[in-house]
């Protein structure tokens, strides 16, 4: 083993890397050229955001969502194509409140070079739920309170007006229309949930995605897992939840489209062992919407599907 040989090899690689670094420096100066083809190119993280923005923008923008149906935002990984879409986007909308995890750090930085807007920025901070007793750790699932989502969408409309002042009047009209639609939806959900008898108005789900829903529509919410779909649930969590279900004689529990159902099946089995029959009331859409071109593939459709599932199982 000659040491000259070693030095040659390592020096060769060393110079290759220096070359690479130098090249990266030189070649990145020209970035940020934007071509205007008339239509705005808008990229959103979740389907819920994309649906609202599509309605606001009408014919003036191409809107796409990074996270498709059934994708858990906590586990989402960008593909090469997603990267290209983000690079070419004129405006990026994301949820904020840490729903997108570490990706949000990148978005915050991206905001220096192009309009990158958190939907949650348009919402009065006092409306956010914080169950954790830590500063700045808010529950991100704001779309389940339709009135909050209305506020966020109104904010998104002002962003569109700023970015494309030419069509400001149209964006305003679309915003007003969407706001009316969401207000009707909000009222409808309220009325539907109110038809469930008071003592049975409890929804048990796999992870704590429905706190906003519970607060807005006066239904008690119990989750097996914490906020994050990554955190493990303990034996004690299962036992506690089983006790609760048996004691309150709850008829049904719910699984979610973006969380595996096996966790809740343990709870159902546990209740059976205690002589209380609880059914799986159906699948709720939590962090992602249904398939595109299905009724659940839109935000109002998703909310309605959830409410129908809940009401049918608990009434």
């Amino acid at each position: 083993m000659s040491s000259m040989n070693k030095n040659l090899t390592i020096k060769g690689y060393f110079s290759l890397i220096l070359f690479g670094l130098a090249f990266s420096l030189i070649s990145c100066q020209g970035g940020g050229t934007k071509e205007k083809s008339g239509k705005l190119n808008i990229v959103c993280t979740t389907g819920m955001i994309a649906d609202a923005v599509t309605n606001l923008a009408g014919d003036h923008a191409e809107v796409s969502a990074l996270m498709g149906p059934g994708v858990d935002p906590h586990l989402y990984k960008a593909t090469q194509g997603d990267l290209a879409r983000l690079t070419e986007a004129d405006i990026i909308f994301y949820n904020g409140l840490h729903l997108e995890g570490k990706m949000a750090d990148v978005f915050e930085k991206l905001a220096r070079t192009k309009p990158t807007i958190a939907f949650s920025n348009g919402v009065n901070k006092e409306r956010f739920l914080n169950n954790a007793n830590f500063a700045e750790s808010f529950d991100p699932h704001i779309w389940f309170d339709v009135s909050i989502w209305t506020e966020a969408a109104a904010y998104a409309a002002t962003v569109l007006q700023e970015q494309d002042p030419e069509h400001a009047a149209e964006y305003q009209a679309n915003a007003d229309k969407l706001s009316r639609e969401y207000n009707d939806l909000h009222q409808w959900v309220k009325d539907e949930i109110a038809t469930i008898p008071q003592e049975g108005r409890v929804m048990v789900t796999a992870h704590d995605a429905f706190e906003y829903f519970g607060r807005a529509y006066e239904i008690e919410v119990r989750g097996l897992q914490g906020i994050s779909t990554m955190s493990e649930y303990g034996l004690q969590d299962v036992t506690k939840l089983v006790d609760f279900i048996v004691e309150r004689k709850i008829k049904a529990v719910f699984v979610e489209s973006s969380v595996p159902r096996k966790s809740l099946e343990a709870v159902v089995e546990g209740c059976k062992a205690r002589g209380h029959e609880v059914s799986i009331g159906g699948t709720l859409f939590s962090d992602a919407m249904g398939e595109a071109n299905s009724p659940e593939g839109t935000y109002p459709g998703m909310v309605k599907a959830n409410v129908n599932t809940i009401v049918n199982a608990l009434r």
Partner: protein
Amino acid sequence: MNEFYTILTGSLVAISCSLLGSFLILRKMAMVGDAISHAVLPGIVIAYLLGETREMIPMLIGAAAFGVLTTVLIELFHKKARLQTDASIGITFTFLFALGIILISAFAGQVDLDQDCVLYGDIAMVPLDLWITDAGLNLGPRQVWILGVNLLVVLAFILIGYKGLFITTFHEEYAATVGIAAGFWHYSLMSTVSLTTVVSFESVGAILVVAFLVVPPATAYLLTEKLPVMLGLSALFGVISAILGNMLATWLDGSIAGAMTAVAGGLFLLTFLFSPKQGILMRLKFR
């Protein structure tokens, strides 16, 4: 431009990891990277509890501290309790990971806190994470600079410490008799590994780092018995994996880290079959 940065980032991680990984494999500690990826959890949780923030810098400090602690514990159990290194690695990281889980459920159950959402980066996001100076000068992705500096540290360490690393890797007992402190080289190597893995996790996520620590060095190991050649080949295989992996990811429109890891595995498989010395086919032919 995006693809260039992706390949550059992948290559920087690949070279750092496969150079260090070569030494790890020869010391039978290949899975130390995987161990660190789990064992940093309590570091993250403690950093969060102290700082009440999920900002990157405190997370990195917490993770790096526990990365070093992991390697210290592994060595302690190996040397003092005379455990095999694999058992020692297994005990250390499961214990620390469990500690992290307990800390989360006891103090931070309602906070979205785990390696995936506060520490692990995504290589696909690197080209968007630009370092722009106050004067508005665009210096390219932040991670490329961090990983570049890290690679320089790794190269300097290996160049300066080559002799010590070589002797303590291959002739540990002889090193002791001539007065070379095996412990010093072990901890230096392991600290460099901790630094590299934690910094790389932050840029490209866990799977790619663990893969680059093991797979390219293992591939090179099949082709040579000379350490300098092994170092060069494993770095080369790492870079080839980054380039071909990026092409595969573009073609599939899939996960970039996944594609790079898959290519590295594919290269290993090819070498395993066709290597002139150790390859299965050659052995069958000359049996």
